[in-house]
């Protein structure tokens, strides 16, 4: 079977998750590689979620929230934006290829933008191939059968 990337997506409940729902209502088609984790606000997303996703074998990550200024919780997405800008730099420094992690701001009415972004994200990660760099591999410990 051909390799298909696994993409973990973190969507805020009020905007992007709504856009994803509306894309469904409008029957817009996009690749089925995305596994969505719904969170109340993009401000809830901790950098460790992204790191954990990479460690657990995600080939790509997509984080999406409300447009700056439209946050349901007033300003959560501004903090998220700043947080991810830093994380993006850090991951680049650690050697993560550009294009593994995607950020977008999609309002709950932008179903077309949602589907287009899903397509774009999937294509970008497909082009990069499987992510191997940060996968957690158990440290090989020699088994000593004859332990005392």
């Amino acid at each position, binding site marked *: 079977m051909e390799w*298909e990337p*696994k993409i*973990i997506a973190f969507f805020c*409940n*009020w*905007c992007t*998750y*709504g856009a*994803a*729902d*509306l*894309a*469904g*209502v*409008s*029957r*817009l*088609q*996009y*690749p*089925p590689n995305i*596994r*969505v*984790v*719904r*969170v*109340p*606000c993009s*401000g*809830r*997303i*901790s950098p*460790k*979620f992204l790191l*954990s*996703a990479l460690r*657990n074998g*995600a080939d790509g990550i997509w984080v999406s929230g409300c447009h700056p*200024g*439209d946050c*349901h*919780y*007033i*300003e*959560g997405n501004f*903090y*998220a934006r700043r*947080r991810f800008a830093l994380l993006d730099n850090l991951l680049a420094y650690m050697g993560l290829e550009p294009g593994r992690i995607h950020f977008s701001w999609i*309002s*709950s*009415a*932008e*179903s*077309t*933008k949602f*589907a287009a972004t899903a397509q774009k994200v999937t294509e970008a990660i497909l082009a990069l191939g499987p992510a191997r760099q940060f996968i957690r591999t158990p440290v090989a410990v020699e088994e000593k059968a004859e332990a005392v």
Partner: protein
Amino acid sequence: MTQPIGAVLVAGGGIAGIQAALDLANSGYKVILVERKAAIGGVMAMLDKTFPTNDCAMCIMSPKLVEVGRHANIEILTMTDIASIDGVKGDFSVTVRRRPRYVDLDKCIACGVCAEKCPKKVEDAFNQGLIKRKAAYVLYPQAVPLKYAIDEAHCIYLQKGKCGACAKVCPAGAIRLDEKETRQTLRVGAVILAPGYQAYNPSGLDNLAYGTSPDVMTSLEFERILSASGPYGGHLMCPSDRREPRRIAWLQCVGSRDQNRCGHFYCSAVCCMYAIKQAIIAKEHSEHPLDCTIFYMDMRTHGKGFEDCFNEARDKHGVRFQRTRVHTVLPDRESGRLSLRYLGEAGSVLVEQFDLVILSVGLESPPALRRLAQNLDIELSPGGFARVDDFRPTATSRDGIYVCGAFAGPKDIPQSVIEAGSAALCAGADLSAGRHSLTVRAAAPAERDVRGESPRVGVFICHCGINIGGVVDVPAVRDFARTLPNVVFVADNMYSCSQDTQNIISGKIEAERLNRIVVAACSPKTHEPLFQETLTAAGLNKYLLEFVNIRNQDSWVHMEQPARATAKAKDLVRMAVAKVLRLSPLKEEMLTISPRAMVVGGGVSGMAAALALSRQGYPAVIVEREGALGGQARYLHKTAKGDPIEARLADLITQVEADPGINVQLNATLTKVEGFVGNFKSTVAANGNETVIDHGVTVIASGARESRPSEYLFGQDERVITGLELDRRMKAGDRRLAQARTAVFIQCVGSREPERPYCSRICCTHSILAALHLKELNPEMAVFVLYRDIRSYGEREALYRQAREKGVIFIRYDRDHKPQVQATPEALEITVMDHVLRQPLVIPADLLTLAAAIVPYRDEQLAQFFKVPMNADGFFVEAHVKLNPCAFATDGVFLCGLAHYPKPIDESIAQAQAAASAATVLLAQQTIRTSGTTARAEPRICSGCGVCVSLCPYNAPSLRTQGPMAGRAEINPALCKGCGLCVASCRSGALQLQGFDDGQILAMIEAA
């Protein structure tokens, strides 16, 4: 007296009707919401964005739509009209005509198969006829109720007796082609009319090429073109040949301010702003530079944030504003474009070509509505809107029948929402003896204690007819779920949301001792609350549910790849099971609410709010800084409708003083405020005494004042006065006024300046009224009004017209060429550049009145006390500029009057009543339940850095001040909104968001 009927009929399901219905239903009244169309939503549902913030209309509206749709105490009757209203306040019998929908609302599952198979294509009225829909249709994708309807006028079966394809394919057996119109009589205690408006139809104007060229369209049609869910998917195109436009023109005042050609003398109040909004959005949508020009007479950007938006449109976005009335639009055959002919400012005829011409059409009451109003004994204003009184801004001429929204005069969304609150308040006050008499309150069974039980997960997978089952292999997903850890029960259901499946789930929870539930179905956004209710009904904590979206985000979007859609569904179920194992029951805190209100400010707004609350049965304390009630209204002469203010104000003060529920504290200041929603404790110092007041809610009505100008010789020459001083003299009957030979008004003194960019909203109307009064005192007096834009919005336009008819001379100036004032002993010499003659004009005046800006008090301490924000201008900032204009983001604190923005008395009273209505919603609950999804702090891990305290926009975290954990964070669950911002920002990992904690999310990630 017999008890009034505790139910209200709200006619009209637009944003005003929705808001009124919610306010009433949430404060203890049964509501019947009657809507003419197949779904509620009104015009707002058609809009792409809303000004001035360019918020997406549907995004901000849909939570309200859903809340109305599943409210236990709101009954929605769609496709229903009012036929007659009999009876009196407290006991009305409303007869309604229910037109057939031909679809059984209880059975329709909105799968859309009927529309897919329906052979008849018709113009889609929701999309302004720009595209086609089927005769079987749903009004719009997010419609509430989300149910199909059959368009009787176009259905082949209903017209010709043949077809019936919909009935054959409907999987739910919901089609009822034999349905007939019925009549029903509803008994209610009060009626609120919120029927809205229709956009002016410009077909009758032969000079604008509307109807002859497809590229000339109304603003509502253009709104659909801009909309992402509209006919072109938000792509900017000319309807004629689908080319992308390069130049777009907006023509203002089409169907407004034009008695001769369209019969509407009034200003529609919203078109200037929506044209600016559309121009900005069109520029954003366009892939190449787009030239946008707005042709206007007066730019009326008189609302909060409007002038900023106007300035930005011009300076930042490059929208061109051309002051003129375009007289002809002619399609140009050669270029395929549209030629506009107009008179330029220099007086010569100019011709320009555009690709698209948008007619900014006005608002009008439909003729059928006017007829209905007459039948119902509701008096109309000259413009055809419901006639209301300035001091009772939402009461119609018939006692017990109220009005809100555009039927009470053309207005924007926030003003409609404010009036909805006002109307709801008045209706509720009439019926307060019947509060809670007809509402239902579901009693939940005792909650099972699942602590100590090992997880027993039940997974329910929905076919949703063929919506999921047609793509995803549901039985395979079900069998897969069975293999997951701790899953003890699995089932697949045809329609999980149906009442019978809900009963099955309930039964299985008990029979199988399930303590964690996973539902894989449509979307949690629409259906999670429903399943949560089912859990509650089965005695399970409602937070032990995880919802998996395998329809909207799976089967519907991967229709061509069933195997991969099934694989995705399995992954999503595995992720949900991983999370649900880690869920624990959450507690919703119950807080009792002190039933008293504190009103800060004893002006008209404060008094109106206090009276409104007291009439609903909630005592109020007014804290007034001055020694008397009345605020700015004490100095005002007349309202825009000509009511003398002094007598009405005296009446209002008498009512307040006579009300046993109102305690007035004069010369009072707040010295300390503690607590939060439901339980504030405020210390008031008045006349040397300090008293502590316990109150559940706070209404801020602290007002604003007239500024003291620093220009035009004000303060240096006694012939130069402000508008308020002129009112004082008129009120006092100062005889010297009539002796003036020439009186001049200068507008925008201190408003619309770089250092104070907002428009003070009331000065144009105020000066015109004063000018008319001077003309009345002495018809020989020469009266001049020097202005920048006349902003007599709505039916106030009649005054502007009347003033011109009476000989008041209006001369426009611009900010770069302000009038010059020189004092001579004989007269004030006022020099202004005449915009018609284009030469300076010198007016010798005896009296110069300056329309001084309205400025806020900038009470930093008050803002600090209640943790409420102020904008750069110093006005308080409401929770949401469109849909929550009289509350703060801080729970339990409300806002009205001039402290929010300059406004006339009728709007202040409406906002005061709306603030009282919002407060009543809270007070009527008696207790508040907080959400269980809140942050929680673990003090032992907390380092006390305070990041959470500084981040949270709701002030939920604080550092403990006492006890062994002093200095460590704690979260007040009553204030926490559950966004999780603090949690992700906590450096020590001491914070968790319950229901979305790190362990749960990481488990999902690992299972993905």
